[in-house]
């Protein structure tokens, strides 16, 4: 991480906000938890922030503060991404899904040029399985239709996707919840993905480009 950091003390001095405001904004989730970076200094533990990000964010909050409540600001700063729709060019530009993967399934949407979160997530999961290099295009297509047939897994972002291969033949499984799954000795798990985790990753990559 070569980002420039700013100490809490310096931040308050530069922006003129008080400790109380900073803590209040943290409470209201206006400032992401991961921006609070703890470091040891000679006076003990100190908190640092990524400089540019926090200065931009505080500037934003100060400007919105007069017209909006803190809850409304929180909603604007980290919108509920499951309601977001994204144009295809944007999805490819942000490298959420590569052009190659998109082309594989593009004929599914002959008209639609803007996709819902659920659709993007389905694409993303398939792209992830292809990325492992252990899955052929044909197998990825079958995963795709399985996810389509069991749409609730994607909608509720639950369960896991497994692909197991034995002697060149692959079987995909979609499970609700897995404590443990035992497979025979010469079979191999080539893909294991949690849908909730994929959704989380997808949200992060959607946020990065949008903020």
């Amino acid at each position: 991480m070569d980002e420039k950091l700013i100490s809490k003390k310096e931040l308050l001095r530069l922006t003129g906000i008080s400790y109380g405001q900073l803590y209040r904004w943290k409470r209201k989730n206006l400032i992401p938890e991961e921006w609070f970076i703890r470091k040891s200094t000679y006076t003990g533990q100190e908190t640092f922030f990524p400089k540019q990000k926090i200065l931009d964010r505080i500037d934003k909050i100060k400007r919105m503060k007069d017209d909006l409540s803190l809850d409304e600001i929180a909603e604007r700063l980290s919108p509920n991404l499951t309601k977001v729709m994204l144009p295809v060019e944007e999805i490819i530009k942000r490298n959420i899904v590569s052009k190659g993967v998109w082309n594989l399934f593009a004929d599914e949407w002959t008209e639609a040029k803007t996709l819902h979160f659920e659709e993007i997530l389905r694409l993303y999961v398939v792209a992830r399985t292809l990325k492992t290099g252990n899955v052929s295009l044909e197998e990825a297509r079958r995963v795709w239709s399985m996810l389509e047939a069991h749409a609730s897994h994607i909608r509720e972002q639950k369960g896991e996707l497994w692909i197991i291969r034995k002697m060149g033949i692959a079987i995909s499984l979609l499970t609700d919840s897995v404590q443990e799954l035992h497979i025979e000795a010469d079979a191999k798990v080539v893909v294991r993905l949690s849908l909730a985790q994929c959704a989380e990753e997808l949200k992060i990559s959607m946020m990065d480009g949008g903020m």
Partner: protein
Amino acid sequence: MDRKEHRDFVVAGRASTAGGEFDRVSIQGDGHVDGDLTCTELKCHGKSHITGNVKASDVKVYGSTRIDGRVESEELRVRGHAEIGGHLSCRQMEAEGMLHVGGPVTAEEVTLEGQLNVKEDVEAESFSAKGVFTIDGLLNAGQIVVQLYGDCRAKEIGGEKIEVRKKGFSFWFKPFSHHLEVDMIEGDEVHLENTRANVVRGNRVIIGPGCEIGLVEYHDHFHRDHSAKVKESKKL
């Protein structure tokens, strides 16, 4: 939640269920819920163990209850003994008995008259304690009022208004008076008594009797009681 749709779950002796959705859940004997529980009201008078998450409008614990997962409720009142494994989030929380939380606590209003132990952060708009607490993370609240009825501890405290007072007249037993131990306190208005802290920072800082502070950094105002120990103070 629709009251009509779900049945009640009442235990007056000993019973188990696999969880699910209920209207009222009342456990007066020994109840075991193996899974998640969603209900309008959860009342535990006896002994109960819930292995999953709880979602309710109202949770009251008079007996002894262990919930392994998360708890999400409008109100939570503990008069007996409660143990929550995961994240506790509620609007109003009252602990008059003993409450252990393994995850973080998020609430609007926290009133403590018993004992509270939290393994992670506590976030609230108002936090008022007349009891004993141990918070392993950050206590972050708009208004913090602590009256020391025992030894309290938090890693860090931050907020707008922070007030720590020793209980009533304790000049008889001065050596045994109770203390708050904390690494760092940061707030707009800070008024402390009987507090041991490495660093205290704020706009207006008053260090009262019984305090031992390493460093005070202040903006507008600093007052120190003659009996308080302050190693170093700096105006910013």
